[in-house]
């Protein structure tokens, strides 16, 4: 479980994130939904301890990220939007590297690597260098690396960006399986179709603040909109009007 409380982060005089708070529960998929520059990436970076919040806190499975960053990250798997693969390492070496950094070794590491490759259906790519992989194959390799240690919490930054429909389906199925197994999944996403399909809860963010937290159906119903896109746009426009009025 990831608990984000009252996060605030400024860069100089610019307020990037202000009093953002939400809880990503175990066995559910929570999505951060927001436009470009809304504060999603800054929030995710504070969750993994790459940025230090000016105020507020993040706890992963009850471990405070600010105070015990290394222990907290041990409970987390992360998939970045750029994947961060090493061009001169083979696919199985990338996954092995991730597992070893999470403290796995010996036969346990070997089994974990095979299990992760199998879960993504990329066993046949094991000896391929990352430099020669397609975009979809790179996503799968990076996701295998993120889940190799069977994390209780999984964080994904725009995982479907640039993927074809086949890769999206693989990702979607895997995330559902992990959720059903009790994993807490927190992701940021632009693709409303994926948000609707996968999310149990949606945290709508705009200009560094939380506008709403609800299920996709709940957001649509509350906004009395015809679909999630209309509900999202309506929430952002209402917030803009409130700012102008104040």
């Amino acid at each position, binding site marked *: 479980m990831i608990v984000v409380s009252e996060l605030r982060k400024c860069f100089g005089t610019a307020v990037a994130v202000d009093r953002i708070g939400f809880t990503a529960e175990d066995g559910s998929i929570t999505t951060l939904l927001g436009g470009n520059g809304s504060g999603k990436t800054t929030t995710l*970076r504070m969750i*993994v*301890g*790459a*940025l*230090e919040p000016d105020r507020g806190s993040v706890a992963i499975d009850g471990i405070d990220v600010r105070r015990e960053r*290394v*222990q*907290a*990250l*041990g409970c*987390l798997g*992360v998939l*970045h939007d*750029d*994947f*961060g*693969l*090493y*061009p*001169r*390492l083979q696919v199985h*070496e990338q996954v092995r*590297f*991730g597992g*070893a*950094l*999470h*403290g796995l070794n010996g036969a346990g590491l070997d089994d974990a690597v095979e299990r992760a490759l199998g879960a993504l259906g990329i066993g046949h790519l094991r000896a391929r260098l990352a430099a020669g992989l397609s975009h979809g194959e790179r996503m799968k390799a*990076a996701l295998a690396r993120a889940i190799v240690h069977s994390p209780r919490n999984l964080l994904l930054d725009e995982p479907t960006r640039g993927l074809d429909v086949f890769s999206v389906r693989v990702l979607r199925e895997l995330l559902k399986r992990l959720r059903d197994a009790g994993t807490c999944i927190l992701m940021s996403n632009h693709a409303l179709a994926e948000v609707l399909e996968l999310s149990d809860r949606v945290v709508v963010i705009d200009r560094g603040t939380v506008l709403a937290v609800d299920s996709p159906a709940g957001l649509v119903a509350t906004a009395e909109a015809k679909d999630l896109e209309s509900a999202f746009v309506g929430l952002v426009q209402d917030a803009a009007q409130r700012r102008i009025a104040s």
Partner: protein
Amino acid sequence: MRLWTVYAKEMTETLRDRRSLFSALSYSLLGPLAVVFTVNVLAAATRPGALEPVAVCSGEARELVAHLTAAGFTLSPDAAICLHISHDYSTRVAEGGTANVRVLADLTASGTTVDKLQSEIQRYARTLAMQRALARGVAPAVLVPIAVDVQNTSSVSRRAEVIARLLIVFFLVTPFFVGVAAAADATAGERERRSLEPLLCYPLRRSSLVLGKWLAVATVGAAGTAICVIAGLMLMQRSALPELGVRLETGLEAAVTVTALLLPLTMLVAAVQVAIGLLAASYKDAQSYLTLLAFVPAIAGFVLSGERLAAASAFPIGFELAALAAPLLGSVTALPPFAAVAAAELAAAALVLWLATARLSGERILAQV
């Protein structure tokens, strides 16, 4: 120890980067090859048998020709170096006047032989002058008011010192050059290909990350330096050093001693390279800064000598410049103890790594991505 996982990853990536490996290894061998080439060219120029043949193209001077032949010159009618003896040579010599001898040659191609030819003709002229003075009742000593006698008091020849110095500079620059690609790739390269942020999301301390990268760069630097030293000294064994009267220690013991003397500096250089790589905005920037850094020991090598080198020997680079002469020349120089300098260099490396860790722990490292 997760730092060994980082180390293994960095080493795997470096060993698979053939272009970087090739440039590192080629540098390791290029320096010593250049020294061997210079030695062989020098030896060839001073080799007696290397004198080109000379032709007497006009005129006649039997005694002069006999003197040249005795000095090692061979006469051949087709030779490119042409000796023109004036038609009145015999008359002028007999009358005690000045005879004219002209040498026609391509000085670019035959400069060494012509210099030697000119010197031998002048020596013959001095002999004639002495004979003339004696015939007129003048003591030959009158013509030589001062005799200069230069004696070498050094335990090593000047030539040996120059060649050893050249080798030392190449050996010293090696750790600075061979680690450039590895350091730039492990730091600025990591950030440029956007794999640094995912790496920071793993449960490992930033210090482990920096130490793993540092050890990998230091391994590349140390291995490249060892290859450069061993290959360099092996090449020197097969060079024409003995023909120049130069004696250098080129055995395994000298190679091991030189490599060991360079090891602490190699560790410090690797730390500085990692820190610079983390400060650089891009891979190309890192490469440029690290290449500039490699000029520091080269410039120091050419600038520091004598008292300045003695004063600089308490510091990194200065110490190595002075200390490496001992195993190569067998000379003894008063220097600070190696253990003290090594400890200071490793302490400096630790300080630089601490600064690099602080840089990696800061938020600005992500701002440049």
